[in-house]
């Protein structure tokens, strides 16, 4: 069992290495999925009798179907470059949370059955048999990886532990061991269309409430249309945007931007989810099925463009995989990126001068920005590599006066995961989530010390939920995490909006950085 040490890790910046705590997180397990939740995704309900043969055979199939899996398992030289890069290792001190050690849990078995050295000299190369204990160990430690790819950045060969984690989870699913949180959620998307299982009617009511709220606030009628055929733009956003804080303030921000740019847009009740947990469990088939809902919604509604709201892994699936999984999108307007990120859209509008801001509306915030891992290391925004770092910062700087980046080694491609990504955002892993957040929190505390930063902006639904839960453990208010479009929403001046001091600050607010 995990050693039960629930202390919130405290450390200094620059990030110091933890003491080795062997077995500290051993046996930590998220709840397992019920049989019906596994079966709904096409997996066996319970551990199959011939699990060993099945698992070994499926491992071989993955090696044949996925070059990354095969090459990454073969070529690690155990140089140790990745060993101090994982936030879960930094937070827990458990050596099995070092990326290479995590990979080795599976690599050792792969070697035993699929390599010459492992077949005939297992002791020499650290190969081992697949046993039920090994399966348990996999289930535990492959659910202590958020698939954030930080290790991949620092590996001399780009070995991405996320690929191994996904493969391990996929193998486990194929022998009947599924994870409750992810598998239940994917089932809901297949059935209802979103992670929450929010039906179309409830969604409609929520959006109408929001329209009223915006009108009360601003005196301007801003619409949040649902299932409107013939709209130009389909907005696909994580369902957390419909109800969670601070996500919902981001959704209001998107609506205001669309309103102000005069866009014709709609949400879809059929594809009311940007998130795609098929990625987390490494299931191409499930990921594809979820992605195809978006294609179908776009076809049914007859839209010309698809835009994604603020969500990290969703943007990875959208940017990097949507064309593969659900393309080709030749029925959409080819003059726009397919798909496009809401921040690309907003930044375009800002550059064209279509939006007016009163930056002082965000003066009660001293901000920093958390690069979400899937956006930072697995996607892009704009035309240039690295646009995914610049565009969100550009937008924040256009709507806020006080912005300070966290230390360089903790942002952009080296960003630290929030601790809740990759399907780990479940209460049964709270201890791990708190510990995994500690490197990011340490970097945040540094800018709080240096620049008095009070709030952190993010563009990922999981990051936002995770931080609102764990930031209080580190001495921040739970609303210290904000959506980037919440900042846009605060500062934007809608045409015809009643403002207290209409004239005085108007000219100043229009200045762009």
């Amino acid at each position, binding site marked *: 069992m995990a050693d039960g040490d629930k202390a919130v890790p405290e450390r200094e910046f620059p990030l110091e*290495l933890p003491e*080795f705590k062997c077995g500290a997180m051993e046996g930590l397990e998220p709840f397992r999925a019920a049989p019906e939740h596994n079966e709904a995704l096409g997996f066996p309900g319970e551990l199959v009798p011939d699990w060993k043969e099945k698992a070994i055979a499926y491992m071989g199939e993955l*090696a*044949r*179907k*996925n*070059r*990354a899996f*095969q*090459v990454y398992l*073969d*070529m*690690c*030289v155990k*140089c*140790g*470059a*990745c*060993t101090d*890069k994982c936030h879960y290792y930094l937070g827990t001190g458990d*050596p099995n949370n*070092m990326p*290479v*050690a995590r990979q*080795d849990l599976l690599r050792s078995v792969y070697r035993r059955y699929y390599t*010459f*050295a492992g077949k005939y000299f297992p002791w*020499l*190369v*650290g190969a081992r048999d697949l046993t039920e204990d090994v399966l348990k160990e996999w289930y535990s430690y492959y659910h202590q990886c958020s698939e954030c790819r930080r290790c991949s*950045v*620092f*590996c*001399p*060969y*780009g*070995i*991405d532990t996320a690929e191994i984690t996904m493969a391990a989870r996929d193998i486990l699913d194929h022998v009947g061991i599924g994870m409750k949180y992810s598998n239940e959620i994917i089932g809901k998307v297949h059935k209802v269309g979103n992670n929450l299982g929010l039906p179309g009617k409830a969604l409609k009511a929520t959006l109408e409430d929001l329209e009223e709220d915006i009108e009360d606030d601003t005196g301007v009628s801003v619409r949040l249309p649902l299932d409107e055929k013939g709209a130009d733009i389909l907005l696909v956003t994580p369902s957390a945007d419909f109800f969670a804080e601070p996500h919902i303030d981001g959704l209001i921000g998107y609506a205001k931007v669309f309103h102000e740019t005069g866009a014709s847009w709609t949400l879809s009740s059929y594809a009311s989810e940007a998130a795609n947990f098929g990625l987390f469990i490494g299931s191409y*088939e499930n990921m*594809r099925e979820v992605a195809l809902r978006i294609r179908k919604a776009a076809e049914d509604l007859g839209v010309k463009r698809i835009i994604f709201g603020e969500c990290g892994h969703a943007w990875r699936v959208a*940017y*990097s*995989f949507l*064309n*593969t999984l659900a*393309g*080709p999108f030749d029925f959409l307007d080819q003059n726009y*990126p397919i*798909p496009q990120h809401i921040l690309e859209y907003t930044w375009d509008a800002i550059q064209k001068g279509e939006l007016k801001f009163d930056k002082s509306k965000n003066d009660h915030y001293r901000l920093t920005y958390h690069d979400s891992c899937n956006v*930072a*290391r*697995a*996607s*892009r925004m704009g035309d*240039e*590599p*690295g646009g*995914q770092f610049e565009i969100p910062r550009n937008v924040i700087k256009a709507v806020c006066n006080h912005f300070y980046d966290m230390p360089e080694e903790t942002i952009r*491609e*080296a960003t630290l995961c929030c601790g809740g990504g990759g399907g780990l955002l479940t209460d049964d892993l709270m201890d791990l989530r708190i510990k995994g957040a500690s490197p990011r929190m340490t970097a945040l505390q540094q800018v709080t010390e240096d620049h008095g930063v009070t709030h952190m902006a993010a563009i990922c639904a999981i990051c936002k939920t995770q931080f609102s839960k764990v930031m209080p453990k580190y001495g921040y208010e739970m609303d210290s995490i904000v959506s980037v479009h919440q900042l846009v929403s605060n500062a934007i001046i809608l045409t015809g909006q009643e403002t207290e001091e209409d004239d005085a600050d108007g000219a100043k607010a229009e200045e762009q950085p």
Partner: protein
Amino acid sequence: MLGTIYALLFYVATLLLVAGLVRKIWIYARTPAPLKIPTTPAPTTLGGVVLRIFMEVVFFQSLFKSNKWIWALGWMFHMSMWLVLLRHVRYFQESIWWIVELAQPFGTYAGFTMLIGLAGLLARRFLVNRVRYISAPSDYLMLVLLLLIVITGLSMRWVAHTDIVMVKSYMTGLLRFRIGELPGDFNLLAHLALVAVLMIVFPISKLLHVPGVFFSPSRNQVDNAREKRHLAPWAAELEK
């Protein structure tokens, strides 16, 4: 007798090395990458990818970002090894290329930097608990094997010279399938035997990082997922 045994050893080792590598490269090349997974920011053009891999292979760019000690030791070892290998080409040719002549003075000293690099990497394996934790016996043995090759090689250059003219005529002979005689001194025989072992284990060990680095999808893919549809053959089957 000795000449025949070593000839056999080298023919077998060469065959295993070449066949093993060709097989692995064939498998890597043929295995599809179902999704676009370059670690971003990534180049948006093929030329950019070539440059990215060049920077990785020649300067160990990612490792440099990661850990200066491993980078310094690893880079020193690898680059010295190239110089040493280049210097060794002279034992296989009658008329020596100019570049091999050029490498000669550097190559002789590169043996020492190679030694320092390897010794440092081995020391790390013992001394850094994170690296010790992830090391299997084969990880130590690989370094020991390389160290022994370097030490036996250096000792022939600096301590007890072998009859290098005889070695050269033996090696050039092997290339024409003519088996001659080898000097019988221990350093040389150990050096050659260890090199043969290295050649044999190459395609069944972590030395596969040599071809592998060129096939790593996180490094060799172009970041153009929105512009160009990427589809693996087995994934295309799902669409039927």
